[in-house]
């Protein structure tokens, strides 16, 4: 017990109090900072649901058929049908790379995977809206919805249709297509609110509750699991007739 010594507890009391007060003052902002929403890159903007609907529908030209799995088809004068991915999808994902595209000469069926949209490690399968033989493959489709003429530049294939009249019956056209897009945007808002909560994200990150504004390219900051749910919810080939 020779080593036993007393510490004068009053010698350092003042500083100890200051440290404890400092801790109590700092722990609150520290914890708030830890729980604050993830710092999102400034390129992300919020738009009201109405603005999103307007932006998407205004870009859909006449004569375009939309498929419920978010692909589109357009019958050209030449008799070939151009197909691609709709701007609702691209405005939700942000810029993507197209991979696993088919080559000219291959035959594709309605509902077959026509390619994959990749963004880092995340991907979505997209399905062909028509059956037929691929005549041309677009080697450099536009990667982003930002381009004003997406339906002109982001087509994936020109297909010689096998039965156009049957395929077109299962797609949406003109006013019906517009109404459907509005519903899809409502669904997207609900989906993002649900999915972000489910995976522990702060929903405020992607959706502003007041007025229901949605973050542009919301899927860009989402992890793979939310992409997988998005695939099942919005691009589900089982829903194709």
């Amino acid at each position, binding site marked *: 017990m020779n*080593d036993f010594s007393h510490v004068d507890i009053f010698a350092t009391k003042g500083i100890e109090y200051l*440290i404890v007060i400092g801790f109590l003052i700092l722990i609150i902002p*520290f914890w708030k900072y830890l*729980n604050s929403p*993830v710092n999102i890159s400034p390129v992300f903007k919020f738009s009201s649901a109405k603005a999103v609907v307007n932006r998407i529908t205004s870009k859909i030209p006449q004569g375009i058929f939309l498929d419920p799995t978010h692909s589109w088809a357009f019958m050209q004068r030449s008799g070939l049908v151009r197909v691609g991915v709709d701007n609702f999808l691209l405005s939700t994902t942000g810029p993507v790379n197209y991979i696993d595209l088919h080559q000219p000469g291959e035959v594709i069926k309605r509902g077959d995977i026509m390619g994959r949209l990749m963004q880092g490690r995340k991907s979505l399968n997209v399905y062909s809206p028509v059956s037929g033989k691929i005549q041309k493959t677009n080697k450099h489709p536009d990667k982003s919805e930002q381009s004003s003429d997406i339906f002109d530049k982001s087509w994936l294939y020109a297909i010689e249709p096998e039965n156009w009249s049957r395929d077109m019956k299962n797609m949406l056209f003109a006013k019906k297509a517009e109404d459907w897009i509005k519903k899809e945007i409502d669904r997207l808002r609900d989906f993002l609110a649900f999915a972000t909560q489910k995976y*522990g994200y702060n929903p405020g990150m992607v959706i502003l509750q007041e007025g229901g504004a949605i973050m542009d390219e919301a899927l860009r900051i989402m*992890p793979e*699991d939310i992409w997988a749910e998005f695939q099942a919810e919005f691009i589900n080939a089982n829903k194709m007739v």
Partner: protein
Amino acid sequence: MNSAESIRVSTLKSKRSVGQFLLDELKPKGKFFTPFNIISVPIMVLGLAIIIIRFWKGLGSVTNLSQSVPWGLWIGFDVVTGVAFAGGAYVITFMVYILNIKHYQPIVRVTVLNGFLAYLFYAGALLLDLGRPWNVINPIIGNSFGTSSVLFLVAWHFMLYMFATLIEFSPAVAEWLGMKRVRKILNSLTIGAVIFGITLSTLHQSGLGALYLMAKGKIHPLWYTEFIPILFFVSSIFAGLSMVIFEGSITYRVFSHKVSADEHKKHDNLLFGLAKICAGTMFAYLFMKLLILVHDQHLALLTSGYGYWYIIEVVGFVLLPMILFVQSLKTRNVVIVKIASLLTLIGIILNRLNVTVIGFHWDAVVRYVPTWMEIVVTLAIIFIEIWVFRWIVHRMPVLDKVSSSNSR
């Protein structure tokens, strides 16, 4: 257990005896000549040989332990550090079963298994260090309980906690053996075992620190404080969770075929949750360290050699990983979480060894340095634990299926 596996088990049970089934399960699965096996097998064989020599010829034949340094690497690393690393089990079970945060359910079994094995092997390594190992039973059977010693508390806690974690894990064993009714009974015991286990953990994590309270004057003043038990307890929270992050990342990679795609995806999100808890606890821990430093009036010692070493431990392996944990949350970067957890683990090893080995008899003329044999035995114990862990994960439903039906 998936349907194919349950059919396999029931077929095995109906056609052959349980003994035959167990024999069958004992056979190795997969390739034998993997880099891990090639490295670990010789070390394990050598380690076991050294352990035999130790029991045959005594501690002095293989260790550098002496009357003045009776506890060396085996206690400092295997027991004191290993138990801190096993702290994840009580933190995760507390969150899932008591706070009802189901989010962490998928990692409960693997964490509890790790906790159990850590106690079994690392605390089991205590036997190696006892001069008369057969006396280990004394505090249990009452041949002089020794209630005035912290070791009495530690001995009972270790034993009871091993039982508690075994009960928590036992439903998985029952599922593996296809014993549905037994599993149901064991499931009903889980919540009791969890509450019991958490109580024991909070006490013995600090109890391990309390062991060193009687070594005042032998431990460097920067590491000796009457608050060692509290520091050990608080640091065991982030030590255990960092181990869960680090070991979980390896497990999910090695046994990736056992984990569903869905669980793989959720795992990243779990890591961020754990990172947040680590950052919060480390923040509090740093203030405690500062408070103790001021309270004990040791600020002047910081400019000595040991002072720099202390600063490296606290700044490099507590403050830095804490900042990295925060950074990982802000950037949603899993890699940073893993780096931070690794730094935290190194920091815990440093801290525990600073108290038990490096800062122990720091002013002695002849310092204790572990022999190569002590190091080999330590490595051998770690490898044996990994082998047993791997054997269990390959066979029992630890990662394969984690649903609400079988998790409780």
